[in-house]
């Protein structure tokens, strides 16, 4: 289907049409001195005229010369927060005369419309779909949210120094997995449609056919992002190179820098590890099983008979990197990394996985 053109001022219509259809619109907005995903009601809440400057262990907001609404890349949050919430109730147990009565939680799952999903993030959602929906077991919490969500993607027109989606084949161009995809131009958006729900919504918007100049401008804006991507991760044979180097000295070396703080796994849009807590009242008559985000960096994450299996930071860093980049292929048929660069930016000591991989493979080649 050929793309359409939506005037800048009409983006608000898009928001409203989504809200008419019962969606809570989640989009980028400035909070805590970063671009975070949160519910928005008007396009004025978007980070108009702001950009982000990222490097290993550092993130800063900065004013742009123009009034772009999407002139930045990805921030500390990912959509995982909404599809795979940091806290979710799995079941409840209540003590009755006839023993424990176990119930699944009754919840009306929210209907989310995600505005501003980048190509790497579409890929990340695709990966979590494989994890949570396409294995032998379906995760009902994820499924309920995922099935009801509407995705408005945005093509990146610039890149951060930490981005490496081109290496991971996930971006910067949005190919699939969206209902609508926007490319921002100074006067408006080129809109592509990726689903029936997308076309249905598009039909309610005041769009027109784009001019040839607009099409070219959009093309070159997207190209700009491609050119700005500097970071590379060579993925040839990466699975074997990592899994056959489990005793490489570099793990030890990285283990001395890594704080085992879990930040990389928390910001990663695909990491899915979790733990279950028992939340009980004092007499333990009413119990809720609560699932929370967890991480392979935690000492007590992998215990056997009360002792940690991965009893030093190096082994936990190795678990993370090898899972992400190697064993993920065995488990889900793709890499677990989409090249968004979040783990590089948000590591408080700036550990860069692309560098670690290169160091480990350097000795191999």
């Amino acid at each position, binding site marked *: 289907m050929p793309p359409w053109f939506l005037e800048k001022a009409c983006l608000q219509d898009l928001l409203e049409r989504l809200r008419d259809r019962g969606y809570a619109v989640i989009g980028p907005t400035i*909070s805590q001195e970063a671009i975070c995903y949160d519910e928005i009601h008007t396009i004025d809440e978007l980070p108009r005229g702001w950009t982000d400057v990222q490097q290993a262990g550092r993130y800063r907001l900065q004013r742009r010369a123009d009034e772009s609404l999407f002139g930045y890349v990805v921030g500390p949050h990912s959509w995982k*927060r909404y599809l795979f919430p940091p806290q979710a109730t799995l079941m409840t147990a209540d003590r009755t005369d006839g023993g424990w009565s176990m119930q699944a939680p009754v919840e009306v799952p929210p209907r989310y419309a995600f505005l501003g999903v980048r190509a790497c993030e579409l890929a990340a959602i695709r990966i979590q779909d494989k994890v949570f929906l396409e294995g032998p077991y379906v995760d009902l919490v994820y499924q309920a949210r995922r099935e009801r969500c509407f995705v408005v993607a945005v093509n990146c027109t610039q890149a951060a120094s930490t981005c490496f989606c081109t290496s991971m084949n996930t971006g910067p161009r949005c190919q699939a997995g969206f209902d609508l995809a926007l490319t921002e131009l100074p006067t408006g958006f080129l809109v592509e449609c990726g689903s029936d729900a997308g076309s249905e919504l598009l039909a309610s918007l005041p769009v027109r056919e784009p001019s040839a100049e607009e099409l070219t401008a959009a093309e070159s804006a997207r190209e700009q992002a491609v050119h700005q991507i500097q970071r590379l991760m060579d993925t040839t044979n990466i699975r074997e190179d990592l899994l056959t180097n489990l005793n490489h000295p570099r793990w030890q070396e990285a283990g001395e820098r890594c*704080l085992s703080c*879990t930040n990389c796994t928390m910001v990663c849009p695909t990491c899915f590890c979790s733990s279950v807590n*028992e939340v009980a009242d004092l007499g333990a008559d009413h119990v809720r099983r609560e699932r929370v985000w*967890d991480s392979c960096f935690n000492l007590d994450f992998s215990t056997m008979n009360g002792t940690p299996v991965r009893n030093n930071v190096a082994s936990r860093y190795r678990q993370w990197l090898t899972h992400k980049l190697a064993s993920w292929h065995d488990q889900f048929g793709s890499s677990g990394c989409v090249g968004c660069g979040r783990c590089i930016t948000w590591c*408080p*000591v700036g550990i860069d996985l692309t560098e670690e991989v290169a160091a480990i493979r350097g000795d191999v080649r």
Partner: protein
Amino acid sequence: MTAKPRLAVFKFASCDGCQLSLLDCEDELLAVAGAVEIVHFAEATSRMEPGPYDIVLVEGSITTPDDAARIQDVRANARFLMTIGACATAGGIQSLRNWADHQEFLQAVYARPEYISSLATSTAIADHVPVDFELRGCPISRQQLLEVLVALIDGRKPQTPGHGVCLDCKRRGSVCITVARGVPCMGPLTQSGCGAICPAFDRGCYGCFGPAPQVQPRSLTGHLLEQGAPPRQLVQLLRNFNGFAPEFRGESERLISQQET
């Protein structure tokens, strides 16, 4: 336990905040009081029965010769001794004296230092007697206190997580204050339990739950120094309420000796 377990609370050098946490369990207090026999808790009751006790909560650090003797007595009467709070588990803020000239401190505060009997150091309870369980925090978390008490009453192991503050920050959606604003934060080195409140209030964590397991403070301080944090500020961050916990202490001393060379 067949009879209700006898619970006692003892205080050493401290601010009373951790034992107050028990009274702060407003919704559960009466139920807790129903499940245990509170036989010694000077802050809350005039009942003062002698030991032995089944569960003893100890708040505060050892700072006087009398207290050093008293803790032996408390231990001898305790089946299960649990320390509560940073003072009891790491010496507390008063352990700052451990690096200072004690006489100078005495003179700074008291007109007649000869009236004061105090040790040159403030030390953790575990430096004096065996401790069965340590509950961290300055102050402790009331939820964790309840969990430990309930677990003890039920005869199971308490579930108190050992991860760092960063994980809780991310769960609650806080943006990393070090990465996004350059504010030095002890979060990556600090055990969770507080619910990651400081970064949620736009400030760095000051480490009040003490070191997380297997922390490597050196990596963080090295990075913060590179980013321009003054060494002095890092030393002060490390030398707070858990300044004498081995991991924090080691790093602050290393930073200082590095400064001096």
